[in-house]
């Protein structure tokens, strides 16, 4: 999508990124920085989901399993072995990628709703297993209680900061990474192949494409990034439990943000996160106390409206408007 971006779009993207870059200098309230970090984090997660599901056109609702497993690996390596979470994060991501190949080689035989249901099943099996396992061959998982990352204090090595700002910049760095990875995907053989499989699987096979092989490659990359995100999440809250890091809510958030924003595009999922998370946050904080559950109604209404009127995601009409503006500017 960068390749076809108009100068106006390119300008807006750069301005948007610069705004994100200087944001912590403008807003100083820790709550706002915290919310901004969560928005960027969700954008990263939605974009990681999009890396395989958006381009392949398959709806996975089990991606949280990668986030959870990698999060646990990171925390356990730190608490049990004293290994820096930065290294644990990479290990966690790699383990998530390996796990994704195991799950994917079973689930990619299925299409459509059957694929979706099996991804949910795998993620839920893992979550329930984690919730009910206190100790696995000597590894203390502590079940549903979850694990706390011991406080070390301000330290890059321990991935712990007293201030929220470093977390924000780490999340922003991750987001930049997935954007670059997705741009590379679009230009690569893998990107072409995923779109071909999405368009017509039989037709793709006739052109020398082994659908399972390329789906698994993309899934493992996506799982790696999702795992990195899960590790970040655990470090950010210094706490991990199966419900939050591995639950289906997170999978649904990733998928919905990508779909609403525009799946199968570089910036769509990010746009989705920047629209949906603030809505969720604002409705929750302003209405959550007085009208219990009303924030979910509003959130649901926004979702229903976008799916009805912009089935390909908000990015499509947005780009059309921008194209019209830049067209008018030329005349």
């Amino acid at each position, binding site marked *: 999508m960068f390749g076809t971006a108009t100068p106006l779009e390119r300008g807006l993207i750069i301005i948007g990124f610069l705004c994100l870059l200087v944001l912590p200098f403008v807003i100083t309230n820790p709550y706002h920085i915290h919310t901004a970090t969560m928005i960027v984090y969700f954008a990263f997660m939605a974009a990681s989901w999009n890396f395989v599901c958006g381009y392949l056109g398959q709806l996975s609702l089990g991606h949280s399993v990668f986030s959870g497993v990698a999060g646990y690996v990171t925390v356990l390596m730190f608490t049990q072995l004293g290994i820096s979470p930065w290294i644990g994060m990479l290990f966690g991501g790699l383990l998530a990628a390996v796990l994704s190949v195991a799950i994917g080689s079973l689930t990619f035989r299925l299409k459509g709703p059957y694929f979706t249901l099996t991804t949910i099943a795998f993620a839920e099996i893992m979550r329930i297993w984690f919730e009910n396992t206190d100790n696995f061959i000597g590894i203390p998982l502590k079940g549903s209680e979850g694990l706390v990352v011991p406080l070390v204090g301000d330290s890059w090595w321990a991935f712990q900061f007293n201030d929220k700002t470093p977390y924000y910049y780490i999340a922003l760095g991750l987001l930049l990474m997935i954007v670059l990875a997705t741009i590379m995907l679009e*230009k690569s*053989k893998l990107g*072409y*192949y995923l*779109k*071909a499989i*999405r*368009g*017509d699987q*039989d*037709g*793709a*096979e*006739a*052109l*020398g*494409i*082994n659908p399972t092989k390329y789906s698994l490659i993309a899934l493992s990359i996506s799982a790696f990034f999702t795992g990195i995100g899960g590790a970040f999440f655990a470090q950010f809250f210094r706490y991990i439990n199966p419900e939050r890091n591995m639950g289906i809510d997170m999978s649904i958030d990733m998928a919905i943000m990508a779909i609403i924003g525009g799946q*199968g595009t570089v910036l769509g999922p990010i746009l989705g996160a920047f629209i949906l998370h603030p809505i969720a946050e604002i409705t929750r904080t302003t209405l959550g106390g007085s009208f219990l559950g009303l924030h979910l109604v509003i959130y649901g209404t926004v979702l229903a409206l976008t799916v009805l009127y912009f089935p390909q995601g908000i990015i499509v009409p947005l780009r059309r408007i921008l194209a019209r503006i830049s067209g008018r500017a030329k005349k």
Partner: protein
Amino acid sequence: MSAPLLKIDGISKRFGGNQAVKETSFHVDSGEILGLIGPNGAGKTTAFNMIAGYLESDTGDIQLNEKSIKGKKPWDICKAGIARTFQLSKPFGDLSVLENIMVGGFVRSADRRIIETKAREVVVFLGMEAIIDQDALNLTAFDRRKLELGRALATEPKLLLMDEVVAGATPNEASEMVELVKNIRDRGVSILIVEHVMHVIMNLSDRVIVLDSGNLIADGNPEEVVNDPEVMKAYFGEKYVQQQST
């Protein structure tokens, strides 16, 4: 005599109680356009799918350049040098005409620039320059067919399997397609074509084979085959053949 490019040796396929193809043998010579005809349900598409690797033959063997390709997967058969088109062409959405054709090129090269240059040549060959950057989903039915042909050509096949390429085309489009197929053969690609439109088959084929209820009932040049009593019987029934002979 040199060995044929594609040698089909006694392939069969049974779906439950239905013997779709029965111990059928034929071959495709290098540089030849071979027409495969037969009434509905004769097993043409099944035979096609067995050659292209979408179905595995219950018996016999399939050889390309004297190497067995039986039981291989479609993508490996494509790499071996057999490309195919489908009865129903579905372009890959969110990719332009050029990019659709490039998808086929990745199987022969990893260099994007080479693939793009070759894909552009294919676009020119197909006469689709005017719509090269259009999203493939916006094409007309006939352009979709041409695009599918282009994708197949981008894999640089030795043998091209074409399934009903002029179905639903206007007479003008059909003759354009006939010319295209001839040009493809002149580029050194052998062709096995399944077609219902008789004048297309008569026009194109060097040789025609006829399948009926899973059996090969005729093999010869187009004029011979259409006058073969067995073939007439398969298409028009016993009574018609008797009337003709009296």
